[in-house]
């Protein structure tokens, strides 16, 4: 058992199986829905974790990619009558290409300026969606559900499977990237510009690749969201989403990619557990986030890691 868990790839697989199983075992379709949202968030958070943990960049504009992925995919399916999987991929790829236009100037900025630039981008996308998106602020619906050929994804369980499988694949690929020589070097050195420069241009292009990947994952997540909820409105894609994503990554822990899924699960399930408190939920939410950041500053992983270090490899 120890051997299996020590292998980081296998521990991902185990995590994945745990999630799927819990969805199947718990007969509550509502629980499954939340799990699906957690999965979508995990996908986006993974993108951000790569960007922040690996490439050392901050982004407050992920909501822009999320929104573009969702709206584009929905419109491709609705107006161009593209089959949903094609719409999903096309939307994600297009959004990531767009992100490159942001990446090139953005990577020249540092710290707070990068934060503002990405914030500005995210805000602009939101404002444009609000003004020019179909239905404007009211949004639009009737978005077709995901279907592969004759097989339509109707039940929550099918989406659960889809989302977390995609996450599994993305996570394995991300792990690969992070553990590669370039990846490790980048993670160690992203805070030192000089050191990076001495190692050559390759690392800069890697940063761009990571930017692209993070946009892709976030856009894909948004696209699946569109075909799952079948209704879109700009409110879902405001900068609050970017902030939420940031919380997930920070609370989960930035120094490991595992921070993404763990943080996503925590932040997605937290409001649900607070539902019984009705109006007081926002107070508790703020309190828990604040305390969480103060005491778990290295992320949820840290106490977990220290405790389980012997058993599981992160």
């Amino acid at each position, binding site marked *: 058992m120890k051997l299996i868990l020590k292998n980081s790839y296998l521990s991902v697989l185990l995590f994945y199986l745990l999630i799927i199983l819990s969805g199947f075992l718990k007969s*509550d*379709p*509502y629980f499954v*829905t*939340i799990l699906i*949202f957690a999965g979508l968030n995990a996908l986006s958070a993974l993108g951000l974790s790569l960007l922040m943990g690996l490439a050392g960049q901050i982004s407050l504009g992920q909501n822009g990619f999320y929104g573009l992925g969702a709206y584009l995919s929905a419109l491709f399916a609705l107006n161009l009558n593209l089959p949903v999987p094609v719409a999903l991929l096309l939307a994600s790829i297009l959004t990531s290409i767009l992100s490159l236009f942001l990446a090139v100037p953005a990577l020249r900025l540092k710290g707070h300026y990068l934060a503002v630039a990405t914030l500005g981008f995210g805000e602009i996308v939101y404002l444009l969606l*609000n*003004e020019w998106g179909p*239905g*404007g*602020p*009211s*949004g*639009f*619906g009737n978005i077709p559900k995901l279907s592969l050929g004759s097989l339509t994804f109707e039940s929550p369980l099918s989406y659960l499977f889809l989302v977390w499988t995609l996450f599994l694949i993305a996570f394995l690929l991300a792990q690969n990237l992070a553990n590669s020589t370039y990846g490790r070097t980048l993670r160690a050195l992203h805070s030192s510009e000089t050191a990076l420069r001495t190692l050559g241009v390759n690392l800069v292009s890697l940063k761009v690749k990571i930017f692209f990947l993070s946009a892709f994952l976030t856009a894909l997540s948004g696209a699946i969201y569109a075909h799952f*909820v*079948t*209704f*879109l*409105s700009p*409110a*879902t894609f405001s900068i609050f989403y970017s902030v939420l994503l940031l919380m997930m990554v920070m609370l989960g822990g930035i120094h490991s990619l595992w921070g993404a899924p763990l943080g996503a699960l925590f932040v997605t399930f937290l409001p649900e557990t607070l*539902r019984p408190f*009705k*109006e007081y*939920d*926002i107070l508790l939410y703020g309190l828990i986030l604040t305390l969480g950041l103060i005491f778990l500053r290295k992320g949820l992983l840290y106490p977990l890691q220290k405790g389980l270090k012997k058993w599981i490899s992160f």
Partner: protein
Amino acid sequence: MRGIKILLFLFLSFFALLTYALASKEPIKIGAILSITGPASFIGEPEKNTILMLAEQINKAGGIQGRPIEVIIEDSKSEETQAVLAAKKLIEKDKVVAIIGPSTTGESMAVIPIVTQAKIPMISLAAGTGITEPVSERYWIFKTAQYDRSAVEAIYKHMQKKGIKKVGILTIATGFGDQGRKALLELAPKFGITIVADERYKPKDSDMTVQLMKAKNAGAEAIINWSVGPEQVIVVKNWHALKLGIPLYQSHGWGSKKNIQLAGPAADGVIAPLGRIVVWDKLSDKHPQKKILKNYEEAYIAKFKTEPGTFGGHAYDAFMMVVEALKKVGPDPAKIRNYIENNIKNWPGVSGIFNMSPKDHCGLDSTSFEMVVVKKGDWEILP
């Protein structure tokens, strides 16, 4: 041995009686999705209060056929995703027999496919036309808020009487403002009105003088502002400060004494189509709605120390319709739906006198409004 058998029998029958008693006392669950927090919270708050107040009243009077009503209120946070989640929870987890809400058009549209698939009747409290039209696709959906276009019609009719032909519109970039804008643009030609300026602003914007000036400059003879919330007060103050000299019309979201208070003397002369709840004391005693309005407002003020406003009224109507249906046909979602569709005729409520039918799941038109002007800090019904 025989003694034990008798004891067992008594025990079992007692148990059976207890279960029966408890089962029939089992509460009837009604769900509500309201915007209690978020940008639409001043709509959701009075709606929530109203429903809680009414549920308490009904339960005090013995409930429905001995069974208490349990209202499960979920906060949608004015966001569509949350509304969808709330709907799923109410249907799948709480197994409610009907849903009241959501508070806004966007949220209502998002929830429609879910309640339709689950075959649970939903009475939305929002104004959007698309909520109940096309009726053929809205079998399970009703609403108790007037259509935006009804409010627009009321305004345009009044403008026709005054001979106003050129209008500048200011709308807020939210679902509410957007719906209003669409209706304003669509209906203008029918009343011989030209929209000479189509200006927008954002929630939480602090100054609308630019938009007002542009409208005046484009030749507007009157301004219509379509928003709900503090922004409509700011527009009034700006309009007053600019001394534009042309009348300002507000949407039906204007109907709250607080707005007059906040706008101060600037509010004098502002005209709006309002639900009768704000002017009930100025109605003739013979008006079919007067009694309901009086009782509602007085009970609400007694309990919550503030007026309910028109939005609370929509919740009142929706809840009372469901309650009436429950009393007549019991807690069966399909029967409740049928009852509301077919038996709500000439039904005096807070928002107006309802006439539901298989062709109209809203039942209200522009006659549910009164054209009201602000005079010296109070409302006055325009002739």
